[in-house]
């Protein structure tokens, strides 16, 4: 029974992929993630099944780490699948998209339950290659180029991983399970290959070039899964292949800490310069992966503190996965249906959570990580605080970018995707209270408020000073921030009325009414909130980033 369930976790998506081109197959997508969810609930940690006839002798199983990964992965794949199932079909071949989605799901879930190197590699390769189909889905020239770049990087990473696995298997005398390789001393070449191979997946700086083009062109449900779940395969790879202990010299841990710190700053600074919300979220992922990298480095450098650090890393990874996926799914809803009040509030809340506001899972994650790191690596606690500040700035810019989008037609919200998204938001809200008590969650007040202050200050300064320093700009499109919000609230009041025409009429009425009332003030604000194109604001963001960096360096 257990073994059947473990097999079904990755076998069911593969089998369903054969049916995926049919019309009804959209409802099969959520079905594919059900065995994994069942396994999280029903199977105790330590369940293992040995399949000596599969590949080169496979071991599947769920240990503590795998349980956590499987938990958030299966939930997120399920919700993303529901999102896709409820989305209207575009004219692009959605059957093919579903096939690759299911293959990626199979690979991802497969590598989580893999307990030996070859099965892990199988899942990793399957997931990496299927993502190509997701990125190239829209077949535009940009999509093709992004997919090609991604493929080249992924294949390079997989080949590095293959080399490392072969080298490890030689040292272990042919034994392939993670238990067997745990005590083998790893040569510098192996460690380097593993760091680079998984680093490509985690989008470490200098290995991240595939990420921005890919995130820009992929359909949003796939990006949500990329950023939330698939990127974490790199983390799982490090946890499996580089166990803290005597096998790895502590110098590598320090190197990872430094790389992670670099990633944090790089992600924040590059993210602040983005004009598209998707890319901003992508760079935010790079920054958060930097936090995880530093954590892994700390665990390697201080093996005695490793168990606590790894537990905290798992909490952090869970938090990030859930919130990032929710952000992307919400962003997808905005891209399709326009910015509406429930979406605005929901995304605002999620932005707070990601930044680590008190009483949210972000606070929980940060407090767990700080707690585990403070005895051994106090400098990382400072780094975490700065990361929180940086993320807050990113989220302020994110909300700003959302609000100042070019106005598109407001469409009705599709029921199923919105319910999936709301479900996720509820889980995110409730999660910290389930896991711990309120006292531990009342942290992060200072970094978050500081970030908020700085963010708003930059926005206002950037928009206010610009005309004096650079000169007045031509009137841009109507970037009606307050107008939007007021129209959106009247719009929400009318939401009970089902007719689309009524909504649009109400919008038009609100539009003209408010415009008449506050023409002068509004036009001034419209003119000056066009900061997305303002070089001065960008410079201010960069300046703040540089200041943060110097603060950090001077305190350590």
């Amino acid at each position, binding site marked *: 029974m257990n073994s059947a369930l473990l097999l079904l976790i990755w076998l069911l998506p593969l089998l369903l992929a054969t049916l995926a081109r049919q019309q009804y197959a959209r409802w099969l997508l959520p079905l594919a993630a059900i065995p994994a969810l069942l396994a999280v609930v029903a199977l105790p940690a330590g369940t293992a099944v040995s399949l000596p006839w599969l590949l080169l002798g496979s071991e599947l199983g769920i240990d503590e780490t795998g349980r956590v990964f499987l938990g958030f992965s299966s939930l997120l794949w399920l919700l993303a699948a529901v999102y896709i199932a409820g989305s209207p079909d575009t004219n692009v071949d959605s059957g*093919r998209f579903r096939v690759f989605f299911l293959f990626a799901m199979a690979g991802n879930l497969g590598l989580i339950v893999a307990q030996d190197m070859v099965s892990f590699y199988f899942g990793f390769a399957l997931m990496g290659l299927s993502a190509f189909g997701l990125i190239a889905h829209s077949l535009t020239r940009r999509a093709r180029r992004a997919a090609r770049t991604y493929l080249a990087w992924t294949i390079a990473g997989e080949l590095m991983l293959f080399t490392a696995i072969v080298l490890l298997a030689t040292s272990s005398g042919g034994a392939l399970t993670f238990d067997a390789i745990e005590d083998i001393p790893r040569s510098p070449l192996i460690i380097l290959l593993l760091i680079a191979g998984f680093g490509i997946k985690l989008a470490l700086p200098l290995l991240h070039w595939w990420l921005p083009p890919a995130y820009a062109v992929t359909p949003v449900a796939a990006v949500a899964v990329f950023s939330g779940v698939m990127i974490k395969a790199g983390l799982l790879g490090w946890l499996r292949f580089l166990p803290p202990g005597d096998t790895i010299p502590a110098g590598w841990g320090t190197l990872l800490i430094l790389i992670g710190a670099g990633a944090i700053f790089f992600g924040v600074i590059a993210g602040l310069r983005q004009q598209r919300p998707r890319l901003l979220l992508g760079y935010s992922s790079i920054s958060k992966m930097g936090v995880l990298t530093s954590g892994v480095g700390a665990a390697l450098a201080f093996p005695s503190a490793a168990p606590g650090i790894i537990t905290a890393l798992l909490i952090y990874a869970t938090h990030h996965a859930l919130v990032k996926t929710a952000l992307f799914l919400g962003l997808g809803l905005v891209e399709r249906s326009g910015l509406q009040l429930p979406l605005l509030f929901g995304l605002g809340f999620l932005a707070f959570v990601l930044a680590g506001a008190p009483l949210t899972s972000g606070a929980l994650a940060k407090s767990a990580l700080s707690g585990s790191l403070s005895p051994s690596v106090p400098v990382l606690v400072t780094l975490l605080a700065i990361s929180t500040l940086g993320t807050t700035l990113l989220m302020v810019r994110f909300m700003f970018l959302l609000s100042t989008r070019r106005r598109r037609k407001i469409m009705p919200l599709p029921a199923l995707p919105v319910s999936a998204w709301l479900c996720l938001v509820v889980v995110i809200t409730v999660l910290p209270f389930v896991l711990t008590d309120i006292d531990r969650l009342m942290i992060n007040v200072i970094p978050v408020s500081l970030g908020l202050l700085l963010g708003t200050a930059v926005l206002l300064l950037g928009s206010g000073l610009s005309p004096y320093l650079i000169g007045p700009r031509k009137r841009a499109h109507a970037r009606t921030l307050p107008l939007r919000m007021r129209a959106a609230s009247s719009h929400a009041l009318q939401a009970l009325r089902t007719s689309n025409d009524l909504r649009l009429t109400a919008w038009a009425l609100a539009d003209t009414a408010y415009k008449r009332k506050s023409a002068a003030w509004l036009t001034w604000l419209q003119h000056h909130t066009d900061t997305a194109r303002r070089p001065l604001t960008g410079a201010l963001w960069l300046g703040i980033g540089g200041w943060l960096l110097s603060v950090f360096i001077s305190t350590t």
Partner: protein
Amino acid sequence: MNFDAWLPLLIVASSLVPGMVIFFLKEGSHVTRTLLNLAGAGVKLILVGVMIWGVFHDHNYETRWTLAPGLDLVLRADTLSVLFVTLSTVLWLVTTVYAIGYLEHSPHRSRFFGFFSLCVSATVGLALAGNLFTFVVFYELLTLVTYPLVAHRGTPDALRGARIYLTYTLIGGALLLAGTVWLYVIAGPTAFVEGGTLSSLPTEYHPQLKVIFLLLMIGLGVKAALVPLHGWLPHAMVAPAPVSALLHAVAVVKAGAFGIVRVVYDVYGVNFTDQLGLLTGLGIAAAITIIYGSVKALSQDNLKKRLAYSTISQVSYIALGTAILGPVGTIGGIVHLVHQGIMKITLFFTAGGYAETLGIHKVSEMNGVGRRMPLTTLAFSVAALGMIGIPPIAGFISKWYLGLGAIEAGMAWWVIPVLITSSLLNAAYFLPILYRAWFCQPAPAWPAEHIPAARHETAGTLLWPPVVTAGLALAAGLFAAAPYSPLEWADLIAQREYGL
């Protein structure tokens, strides 16, 4: 004589006799011809099954025919020959079905199937050869009976390609014969014995043995398409697809590779070859071939030519595995014999399927073919991914063992980069084809749609063989650690070779 002595001969005869009969059939007697073909293939399969069972139960199958004192024609079943015979038989059955469908309306089918059957007889004969003399006899027979197959179409191109093929292989055969004769003069009749028989010769013969090895390798390397002896292969692509499939997967190229394996393991002995310092040279030649074949494949637009260069590259993996000292490398080389055969035959079947159904001969014409012929393209994709080395398809298993073996033998510093580069190059010339097939919009009209889409995308005899072999490739990789897999077989061979 008892049954044990007849069985190897019967296996050879099971395709020889139908072949001889088919020559005399009238062109229009489709049913008889098909019946003879399939009956021969079926009988051979059963006999091979009996042989496998017998070898596992320690029967000793040997047919010996003394031509002259000291000159015996020996057909014997040991583990390596059983491996190759099984591969040949299974793939011959599938290819026969395919060829029946492929040559549906072609002329001279009796002639074709006659030589086709003779070709398989020759292959099986050299697989079962028990000494070097028998091997050379069947090797030359193979050359002679494959010439008409290459020239089948009769066009000037086909004749030219066949002439080039004949030139190369006859010269190679002459060198092989020279080496064999010289070896007989020095060492007497060289039977194939696991671990080799030549290590017992006194040291003053060693320089001669090195030269003989070189002669043998050149003679075998022509068929095995080692660089720079590979020139005939791209020209031989003018042959009909079943011929290309058989040639590349089973008969000619594999025979060359099989010969290399036999000479190194069962004539010289791998340890002795290493002592003579010849193993490294073989490895380097193999490595150069691997990279050269892949690089040339990148620039080919003709699908079959691209696959031809891919064959040149992939068959050298077998030579590379032979050159890696140690059981693990041996396993990698021998198991790749089987895996590459299955994957390559799938690729050629699908290439022929595209040509026959839609008139597609070039990669640039393959846009959107995945929608029109999904099962065929799925088979192609599975085989292509296997060639690149993606698990769980069989090619991954071979690369794994080759890599592992190289590290254990201390040769990793140049073998692993060769493997990785080859994988990258394979990806570079296979993945764009897959992208075109699955993601691109088809052109308004196919080059020449001979077979319109009916219930299935193409004729059954063109569709199911590649699907079956793709399934075999997947199974060979997925269940590699299961009992009775090719991997386990190769393991057994390696154990016997190293005396473990």
